């Protein structure tokens, strides 16, 4: 096995692991033993005989768990006693090894997502992504495209000790919070959807996230952010 291929495999193993952890943290159905795969096992599954990993084989699909479905379902209201379908569905993760990712690659990916009726598509690019390619993301709605670079996923940022725990609130919890503090949602502090942790959790505009920090005086301290 070549030195270069081994290094590439190690890098991709980390990226792949972080991506799976990210999906677990968002609430998709995945077992822990599917995440904690050793490097040797990873190489056995995804590497070719020359030692280089095959990104095509690494793609995977996950279903949302019941808890996640409940979180994304609108609470019934007197006017709409029947809540609509949950605003979440299967996720498809693809790894792309191209040097530069342009409109074409992302369009193909969006087309595939649409064809297979996935709700969310996560595109992980090895190279750089052209700025105009990112512009097509809003044009393929309602399918949700998320684009990550491999370098962003080498380590799991939420495991860092300085990153507090972020918990997404469901619509019901959000309504309760606003009622309890007698706020309008625009009066909450905000978080950008481009924030690294917001990207990790796949926050959408209008969602509220609860941030639990350690506090020397109070033990734990919760604050809330409105994603914009």
């Amino acid at each position, binding site marked *: 096995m070549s030195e270069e291929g081994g290094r590439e495999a190690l890098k991709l193993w980390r990226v792949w692991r972080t991506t799976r952890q990210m999906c677990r943290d968002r609430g998709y159905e995945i077992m822990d033993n599917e995440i904690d795969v050793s490097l040797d096992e990873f190489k056995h599954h995804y590497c070719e005989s020359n030692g280089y990993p095959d990104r095509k084989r690494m793609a995977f699909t996950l279903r949302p768990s019941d808890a996640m479905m409940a979180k994304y379902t609108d609470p019934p209201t007197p006017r709409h006693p029947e809540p609509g379908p949950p605003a979440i569905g299967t996720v498809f993760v693809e790894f792309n090894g*191209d040097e*530069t990712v*342009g*409109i074409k690659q992302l*369009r193909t990916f969006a087309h595939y997502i649409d064809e297979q009726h996935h709700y969310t598509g996560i595109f992980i690019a090895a190279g750089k992504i*052209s700025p*105009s*390619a990112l512009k097509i993301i809003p*044009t393929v709605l309602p399918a949700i495209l998320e684009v990550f670079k491999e370098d962003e996923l080498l380590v799991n940022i939420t495991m860092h000790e300085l990153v507090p725990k972020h918990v997404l609130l469901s619509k019901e919890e959000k309504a309760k919070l606003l009622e309890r503090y007698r706020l309008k949602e625009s009066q909450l502090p905000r978080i950008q959807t481009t924030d690294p942790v917001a990207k990790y959790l796949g926050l959408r505009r209008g969602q509220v996230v609860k941030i639990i920090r350690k506090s020397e005086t109070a033990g734990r301290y919760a604050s809330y952010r409105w994603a914009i």
Partner: protein
Amino acid sequence: MKPKSILKKSTNSSNSSSPPVNPRDQRNLDIALHHARLIQQQKDAEAQILEALEALLELPSSPQADPAHPSEGDVVQFKSLITPFQPSDYDSLIEERHAADLCGYALCPRPPKKDKLGGKMRIVPGSSDGSPARIVPRSQLEIWCSEDCARRALYVKVQLNEEPAWTRRGGLGTDISLMVDQPEAAHTMALPIRSKKPLPEDLVQENMSQDMAALALERGEKPTSGNPFRLLSSDVAEKMSVKPPVAPGSHGKNDTSTHSAIEGYEPKTGKPPIANHKVDEDDDQDWGI
């Protein structure tokens, strides 16, 4: 007696129809709507540019197309698509075509040049028309399939309107011309043609007075402000030197005198001895305060 209500009179009682609209509210609403429409217009223009960019990735229509002689249909399509572009949009088109492994010029079907050699920079040898050799980043060279295509693409870029499409008024603006057929002729045409043979004297005079008049107009000079046609004649006269120049410090009587001289100048630091007494007195007074 009927008890008097202590509640405020409600403004929208059931029997009255819709309350009269405050003129100021109406104005605010109008302003908000105006700005919202402007933003919508901008978004529409951006979406249109993105669509045009994607369409330009598909050009040219046939893989055998020749960038020097593009087909009629392609040219019409190219021109109509490129009109709303700003130069920066054009740059992203080039980048996008590079990502799609195509030459940066939208009417060229060939893949860009690829160098197997590593390294960041490349030396471009000087060409026959007199341009000197240059050192350019490799990534810039690998955008194009050939030097000609680079020239053609940049010829389009310089014609693009700097103004964003959503603020442009009055239709589509200027027509964009392409460098087609004879690229050599097209780009030498803009240059002034200089004839080697000197023109007859009276013709020169006439030409110059015309040029000077045009220049005066451009500068905003009035015909009354002096004579704009008169040229200043410049005669460079050499100053007569009487003796050979001497380095400072090496002449005069202080030549060898002091070490403190700076290029022959001796700063006066010492005070005349008579003044010493008075200075002392001043010092005492200073301390006394």
